[in-house]
C-alpha cells in the first residue's frame, strides 16, 4: 500500500463566525482518484481552495507529497493543478497565449510544445489563435483542464470539472484523469452527481457540514497505477466506511 500522498488532519476553516470546515481528516494515495461529494455549502469548494493554496487554512495540518501546505506553499503550488468554478484564464488572450503565459508562470520547459500538445489533446488546436472570449463554456472548461495539466502536476484538484462539458467532454475528462493516475498522479474532485463520482473516482468521500462523514469505495490505488485504468465504472460501490 502506498503512503498517503495527500494527508489532511483536523482541517478547520471559518469565514467570520461561520465555520465552514469543522475538522476534516482525509487521505489520498498516489494513483488514487477520490470524489468529494456533499450538499451545497458542505465545504467542498473551500476544502479544494485551501489545498490549491488559494485560501489559508484556519487550523489543522495538510501535507502534500510530504510538503507542509502552509510552510512550503510555493513548492506545493508547483505540484498541484487546480480547476475551479472559474476557468482562471484571460479573456483578452488567445487559447495558446493563455497556456504560454501559465507555462512561464510555472517555468515549464518547452512550454510552446507542451501547450500545443495539450491544445491538441483537449480538441482545441483549431481555436489556438482565437481569443478565449469566443469560446463556449464547454471549450473554456477544456482549456481550463489543459491549463491545470500544463505543468504536469502530481495532484489534480477539480471543483465540479464536468461543468459545461458535453458527452465527449466528459469522456475526455475521464481519459485525462486515467492518464494522470497512470503516470502516478492523484486526483481529488468535487461533484454533485453520484454517477460522475462513480465513473471518475476510485472512492467517494462524503462531506457534510464541514466534516467527512463517510468514505465509500477504496480500490487499492497501486492497482490503478500499474494498470493505468481503474474505476468503479461498473457501478459497484466498495465497502461503506463510516468515519
Amino acid at each position: 500500500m502506498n503512503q498517503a500522498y495527500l494527508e489532511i488532519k483536523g482541517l478547520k476553516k471559518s469565514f467570520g463566525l461561520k465555520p465552514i470546515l469543522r475538522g476534516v481528516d482525509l487521505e489520498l494515495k498516489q494513483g488514487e482518484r477520490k470524489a468529494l461529494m456533499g450538499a451545497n455549502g458542505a465545504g467542498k469548494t473551500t476544502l479544494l481552495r485551501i489545498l490549491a493554496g488559494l485560501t489559508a487554512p484556519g487550523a489543522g495540518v495538510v501535507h502534500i507529497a510530504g510538503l507542509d501546505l502552509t510552510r512550503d506553499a510555493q513548492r506545493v503550488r508547483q505540484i498541484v493543478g487546480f480547476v475551479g468554478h472559474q476557468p482562471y484564464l484571460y479573456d483578452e488572450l488567445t487559447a495558446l497565449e493563455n497556456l504560454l503565459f501559465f507555462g512561464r508562470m510555472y517555468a515549464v520547459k518547452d512550454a510552446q510544445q507542451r501547450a500545443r500538445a495539450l491544445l491538441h489533446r483537449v480538441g482545441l488546436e483549431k481555436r489556438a489563435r482565437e481569443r478565449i472570449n469566443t469560446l463556449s463554456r464547454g471549450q473554456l472548461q477544456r482549456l481550463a483542464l489543459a491549463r491545470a495539466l500544463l505543468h504536469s502536476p502530481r495532484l489534480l484538484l477539480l471543483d465540479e470539472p464536468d461543468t459545461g462539458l458535453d458527452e465527449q467532454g466528459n469522456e475526455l475528462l475521464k481519459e485525462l484523469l486515467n492518464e494522470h493516475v497512470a503516470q502516478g498522479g492523484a486526483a481529488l474532485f468535487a461533484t454533485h452527481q453520484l454517477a460522475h463520482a462513480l465513473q471518475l473516482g476510485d472512492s467517494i468521500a462524503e462531506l457534510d457540514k464541514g466534516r467527512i462523514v463517510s468514505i465509500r469505495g477504496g480500490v487499492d490505488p497501486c492497482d490503478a497505477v500499474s494498470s493505468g485504468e481503474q474505476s468503479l465504472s461498473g457501478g459497484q460501490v466498495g465497502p461503506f466506511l463510516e468515519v
Partner: protein
Amino acid sequence: MTIFLAQVFAILWKDIRCELRSKQTWIGMGLFALLVLVIFNFAFDLRVDNKASVAPGALWVAFVFASLLGLGRTIAAEREKGSMDRLMLCPVDRKAIYLAKLLGNLLFIGVVELVALPLYAALFDVPLFASALIPIVLLGTLGVAVIGTLFSAMAAATRARELLLPILVFPLIVPVVIAAVRATATLLAPVANDPPWLGLIVAFDIIFLSISMLTFGYVIEE
C-alpha cells in the same frame, strides 16, 4: 532570480497585451489628462508673473488624477473573472506580481505623460526639455505608482473600489505631490535656499517601494 525576472516580464507582457487589446485604460487616462490641462489653461489667468504658481499644480493634478484612473483598472481587471486567483494559483513570488504591476502602471502612466507633456509645454508655455522637468516627472510618477499599485490591490477586493482608492491613496501621496509641484515650480521660477525637493521624492520612492514590496503578499492573500 532568473525565474523571478521571467515571471515579472511574463506578467508585464500579459498586461500590455491585454491592455493593447482592450484599450480600456490608456485611452481613458490620456483623454482625462489632456482635458484637465486644457480646462486649467482656460480656467486660470496665465500671465508671466503667476505662471510658476499655476502651471506646476495643473500638471500634477492632471497626472495624479489620470494615474488613479489607470491604477484602479490594472488590478481590478485582474480581480475580474476568477479574481487574483489566476496568479495566486501559480508558484510565483508575490513580489514578482507587485513588481510587474508596478512596471505596468509606470508604463501606462508614462505613455499618457508622453502625450500630455508636449501639450502642457505648449499650453502653459513651459520649456519641456530645457531643464530637470523629466527626472521630476519620472520620480514623481514612480512615487504615485508605488503607493497606487499597493492600494489598488487592497481596494480591488472591495465593492467600493472606485471610491476607496482615492481615499486611501491621496493622503499618502501628499508628500510626493507637494515635492513634485514645488520642484516643478522651482524650475519655472528659481527660489534661493529651496529645500531639496527632488531628494525628498527619491527618499519617498525608496521607502514606499520597500514597504510595498514587503507587504504586497499580505495584501493580496485571502
